[in-house]
């Protein structure tokens, strides 16, 4: 069960807001309070009981402070315009966002947080072995001389720690 607030508030340009604000069941299952439209900020009072809308959405006078924000909102009549979760002031703040590098591309690091080298970035050289064999230990000097060189620099700069 997921209810919505379809905001029809008339905007400055005379057109309705037409934003769909999604009320995720986890937060709104049994909930009474004020919630803002992610696009125009109009505040609505709602009262939900057991996942069903009991009262509202009733528009509140301008300046009313919202108790919370929708999880997510979009404007279905204007294509794929949306407000993802975690947008301060629009959708519900969510502090533990994935890191900015979260683009579906793996993070390739050549040194651990204590500054020692690790192998495992791509592309890797094919093994010299038979049938998928990897018959060697990782010898940095041979397999990745540039990492070995960088490691020496790091040691000299005192960037390599035990913990």
């Amino acid at each position: 069960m997921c209810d919505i607030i379809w905001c029809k508030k008339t905007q400055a340009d005379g057109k309705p807001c037409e934003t769909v604000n999604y009320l995720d069941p986890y937060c709104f299952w049994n909930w009474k309070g004020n919630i803002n439209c992610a696009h125009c900020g109009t505040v609505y009072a709602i009262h939900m009981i057991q996942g069903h809308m009991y009262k509202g959405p009733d528009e509140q006078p301008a300046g009313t402070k919202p108790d919370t924000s929708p999880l997510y909102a979009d404007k279905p009549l204007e294509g794929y315009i949306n407000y993802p979760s975690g947008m301060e002031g629009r959708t519900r703040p969510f502090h533990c966002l994935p890191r900015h590098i979260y683009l579906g591309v793996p993070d390739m690091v050549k040194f651990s947080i204590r500054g020692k080298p690790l192998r495992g970035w791509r592309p890797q050289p094919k093994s010299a072995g038979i049938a998928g064999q990897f018959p060697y230990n990782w010898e940095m000097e041979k397999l990745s001389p540039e990492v070995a060189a960088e490691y020496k620099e790091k040691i000299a700069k005192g960037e390599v720690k035990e913990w």
Partner: protein
Amino acid sequence: MIEAKGLTPRQFLDKVLEPEKESDHICWQCEFLKPVIKGSSFPPADIIGWCMKIHWPYYWCVADFNVVKKCYVFKQKG
């Protein structure tokens, strides 16, 4: 969608949680009963719902064959 006009929150909740069973338990008038809702195939068929008070925070299964007529914490639902 359930029409909320003129209903108190409690009456509204009763519509949402439309019960599967009917019986002579006084629990039906009690604030603390959480009924088995219509169409449930789970839980077992021989209970009318759960009492949320007697063993709170645990829920007590109110059996349909053992009719509660009198209860020391009964509270008329609002």
